[in-house]
């Protein structure tokens, strides 16, 4: 069962690399989806390993959360594109901390 856990760790690392290296907001979002799915795979593998259904219920919660996140995130991307005609995260550097 630890094979799928390792696989989920690898998928999460690939998604992390995508978030750090991509420069378009939409592609960064896709990498975040990849990371959420890696977490789901780990939850399902844990559920299978321990014979407990709660892992799968948690994965369902994560899927619903990802759907809400995508709705709001893509709404923000569309609104930013209307204001700036660009979705490159480098063009959104006015807000400095």
């Amino acid at each position, binding site marked *: 069962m630890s094979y799928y856990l390792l696989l989920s760790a690898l998928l999460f690392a690939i998604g992390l690399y995508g978030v750090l290296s991509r420069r378009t907001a939409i592609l960064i979002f896709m990498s975040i989806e990849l990371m959420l799915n890696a977490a789901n795979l780990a939850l399902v593998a844990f559920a299978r390993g321990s014979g407990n259904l709660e892992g799968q219920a948690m994965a*369902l919660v994560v899927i*619903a959360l990802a759907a809400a996140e995508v709705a709001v995130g893509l709404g923000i991307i569309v609104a930013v594109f209307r204001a700036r005609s660009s979705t490159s995260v480098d063009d959104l550097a006015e807000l400095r901390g």
Partner: protein
Amino acid sequence: MSAFDLIAGVLLVASALAAVTLKNAVHAGLALVGNFLVLAMVYFALEAQFLGWIQIIVYAGAVMVLFLFVIMLLYDAKADVGVDRLRWMRPVGAALAAVFFLALAYAFSGVGPVNPLADVKLAGGLPGPLGKLLYGLWLYIVLLIAVLLFVATVSAVVLVQPQTRKARVKPQVSERDRELEEVGK
């Protein structure tokens, strides 16, 4: 480890790598759809049948179609945008991801089967047993998710609303303004 595990692992890693490296955003999205579909097959194999179908319907269906719609709506089908201001970010990101993978693998290395003697009672992960859990112990979490989805829907609609038009000026008011202007001359 069966042949299915190996093939699924190779397909998952290959499609994930394609999704984070391809230059064309539509191609990357399609690679991500492939990743989600293989992941659904893995769910079926891990006795999570309901979750597998939800993965296909919600992720590979609704979410990715939304992504592709937005990519095509914004003509944003390319990953290269202008000059790369953080050129060193790519190797640093790869190194950070590798370190993170090693840390996760180390954390997972201690996890074995939790109680190997108890027979697995997942019942295939069918909607029946899962629903008993969701509408019993997890009821308030399901309600909170309902609120979250409602708020997300409303905020998405508000965010993409076109600019609100200015209130229309009454004809009498515009007439009076015109007359005042003429008097002012």
